[in-house]
């Protein structure tokens, strides 16, 4: 995973606004990186660009050797489907789907052979064997995030993006979730990019970069 001179600008009512400026990063397979910063520092925008959810104004992102800027929207979607997993602060589970169905979704999208079987295995990995048929609304915040983690690891992604994964959880649950993410990450050799404002959590990663005003101020 590599970013070169990454810039993101948007046109607002007060003129052009630079959200990210000259971001250069390189991350090897299996490595973990924490992106630290306060609210509004550009962390989530950076994650969106690195994951191919958004397009940079200039510069480029290479993911598993592929230049995301050269792919169209569908090309990036295909890449995400095969190589990328996500964990979000707000869990982003679909409320109408059971825990099992939520985990099955990326496997079904990728046309997996046995989505149900694999989804069950992933849910067992995160300790939710007895919660498979529950809907998100029937689960606690910690359990919902576990489902999200199971979904992120379903299909065996090469790289995992986690956006403030503990932002909505109490301290104790947050600790368990972080422990779970890092355990699975180690077991599967996944590359991890974790966005957080908490230096404690950042310490679990191999490397840390700190963003302020859209620029890397410390790495």
């Amino acid at each position: 995973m590599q970013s070169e001179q990454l810039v993101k600008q948007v046109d607002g009512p007060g003129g052009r606004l630079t959200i990210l400026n000259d971001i250069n990063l390189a991350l090897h397979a299996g490595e973990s990186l924490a992106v630290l910063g306060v609210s509004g520092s550009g962390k989530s925008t950076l994650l969106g660009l690195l994951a191919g959810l958004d397009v940079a104004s200039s510069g480029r992102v290479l993911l598993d050797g592929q230049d995301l800027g050269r792919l169209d929207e569908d090309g990036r979607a295909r890449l995400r489907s095969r190589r990328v997993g996500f964990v979000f602060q707000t869990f982003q589970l679909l409320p109408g789907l059971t825990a099992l169905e939520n985990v099955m979704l990326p496997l079904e999208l990728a046309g997996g052979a046995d989505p149900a079987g694999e989804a069950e295995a992933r849910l067992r990995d995160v300790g939710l064997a007895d919660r498979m048929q529950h809907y998100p609304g029937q689960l606690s915040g910690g359990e919902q995030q576990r489902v999200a983690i199971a979904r992120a690891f379903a299909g065996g992604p090469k790289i995992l993006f986690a956006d403030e994964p503990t932002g909505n959880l109490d301290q104790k649950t947050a600790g368990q979730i972080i422990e779970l993410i890092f355990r699975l990450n180690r077991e599967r050799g996944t590359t991890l990019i974790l966005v957080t404002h908490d230096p404690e959590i950042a310490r679990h990663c191999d490397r840390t970069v700190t963003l302020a005003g859209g620029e890397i101020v410390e790495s």
Partner: protein
Amino acid sequence: MTPRPFRLALTSLKRDWRSGELGLIAVAVVIAVTSLTSVGFFTDRIRKATERQATELLAADLVLESHSPIPDSLRRRARVDGLETTATLHFNSVVVHGDALQMAEAKAVEAGYPERGRLRTAPELFGRESATGDIPQPGTAWAAPRLLQSLGIHVGDRIGLGKIQLTVTRVLTYEPDRGGDLFNIAPRLLLNLADVPATGLILPGSRIRYSLLLAGSAAKIAAFRREFEQESHDNIRIEGIRDARPELKRALDRSEQFLGLAALVSIALAGLAVAMAAQRYARRHFDHCAIMRCLGAEQALITRIYVYQLCLLALASSLAGCGLGYLAQQGLAALAAGMAGGPLPPPSLTPLASGVIAGLVTVLGFALPQLWRLRHVSPLRVLRRELTPVPAGGAVTVALAVVALALLTPWQSGHTGLTAWVFAGILATLVLLALGARLLIRTINSLRFRTGGALRFGLANIARRAGLSTAQILGIGLGAMVMLLLTLVRTDLLDTWRGRLPPDAPNYFLINIQPSQVDALRDFLHQRAGVGTVLHPMVRGRLTDINGKAVDPDSYEGRARHLAARDFNLSWARTLQADNRIVAGKWWDGGDNGATRFSVEQGIADTLHLKLGDTLTFTVAGRKVSGRIANLRFVDWDSFNVNFFVIANPGTLEGFPTTYISSFHLSESQKPLLTDLIRRFPSVTVIDVDAILTQVRHIMDQVTRAIEFVFGFTALAGIVVLIAALQTTHDERSREAAVLSALGASRRQILGGLSAEFACLGLLTGILAAFAATAVEALLSHYVFRMDVTVDPLVWLIAPLVCTAVIVAAGLLGTRSVLRTPPLTVLRRI
């Protein structure tokens, strides 16, 4: 491995169905398809029944006719082919009783006649008739009432026909293949074929019509006809059911068209509900799609999943609609029992296919533009929730809806004009309602600063959501307009229609009244029956020249040829009859200086290509009468009053041999008067149209009920539109209520605000619906029903009141769960 969109769509459909998000779309489709298929099944059955009836009008499935005997070989072949056969023979002859003579149309029949339909007879003149499977025995005859009247005889009397004497044993009241004109043909005498040789009337050169009636299965009949038509039979004419009674077919086509249009209106409303429900469905699936996009779903996959999902939903709902449509048409058929003259044949399965196609087209046409937006959901929405795809383009949405509706009008072939008018009407109503809604919203927005409290909050909400409010007003307004048409206006229209045939509509005609009998007859009817009748003079004349050019019947086609070849019943009048209306030119005012002027009925003028100012020449009793056409008249032929195709101004036809004609109403208990009337005025002929009148009234009642039944679906579709329209802003309103509640607003305050909003919405909708209903009704009555109808002014009071009450009630009912739930739960859920 590639994703399997169909399987994903199926899973997604199951999930969405479970969460209740697709219910409204499904209900709307079920209603639309039920409406369409019930009409489809019903008209299919009516069409089959009409064909069967048409066979009765021939008294067979196929008839061979000739002026020379039909070869026995043909009859033998028909029998070999498995067809039933029976022969009949027609000739005109004078029937004698004592000194009385009367020309009669004799028909000789053999056992088996009629092959289709049944004869009806009565034991005495004006007696109770009943159906029979018999024919007259040799040596006997059955006579039509007019023959008995003109000869002054009764059942049991003997009459002479050629060289033989026959005993009249029954009064013949109905024969299925009679046809023709009640007033212009000689009365019927039915006798046994075995008696014909003895009459001595079958001589070389006699004008005799031989018929062979054939009956059998459709396939055998078709095969026989094919074979017959391949051979050369110059002097034998063949007539099948498709050649019979085109006017009946036209009438049924028209009712089919109206029922079809009624179904189309429910489809349009259901489509509106589908579009609104789909809009909400799409909005609620933005997050879903963003996550799927984030997890790697391509745009094409998203589109395919939702299109397949829609198709599956449409298919399932359509099949349910077809089932319900089948059940509903049973009800429709029960309501219309007797309309087709007997039990209806079972329907074919063709409407099933059109029902399924209609369901698919409705869903795709109305929901697709909304769901198409889902492919444009950005995956970045998982991080920035405010990212929403651009709304579906208005023009594309309307265009697709119009295309969908156009595809759903298979009955439009041949009636493109009417269908186009309906579309134009729907579109114009939508545009006017939208403009009206915008104007009213702007007006109330300016008023809001003069109000306070809940009302201000409600008004502000409507103005802030101007787009959604307009859509709601449009949806509910269109639904309400249809409902108004159904309840208030429909009653006006149907009552006016039925009012054309009041309970005292004439049920008897008197013809052959001599000028010397006019006063005495008028007095008789006045004193004995208490009826005041108008006696119209009648002179018979043939149209010989138009604008100085001789009329050649052979230069005309069909009905025009028939009219040109026969005598007209001409009359004269000083004033215009109440049920006539001048459509061109002017009625005469006496300033014609003795010149002859004619007033011509609009329909016949069209048929014979006559224009205002043309000069017509009639030959009356060997003398020519010429005059210009002074005006064209619209005649309401349904009224059963005496009417004439051509009327002359006074002073023109007086002096020619004249008889008088009249019509009047007699109640059942007054019928015995007729016997006295005939005794007192033996030369006057009574024609009983009571049976026809009853039949026409019966059909009117049944058509009315069928239309009400079909419009019931339109009403249901209107309710679905109301629910769908209220749901479009439900989420937003719930969120606002939760926020207000969190900020400390009391339940009462929130309810007040919501009530004010719903009330304003209802009031605006009601006003617009009343306006639209009045306009549509005026157009319908003028252009379609051609009647003067005054709309009940109560519409303007009832529509706003009912709309306000219903929308407040339905709106609060829909939001009540929000008020009972803790605000945080609501905010988390949405």
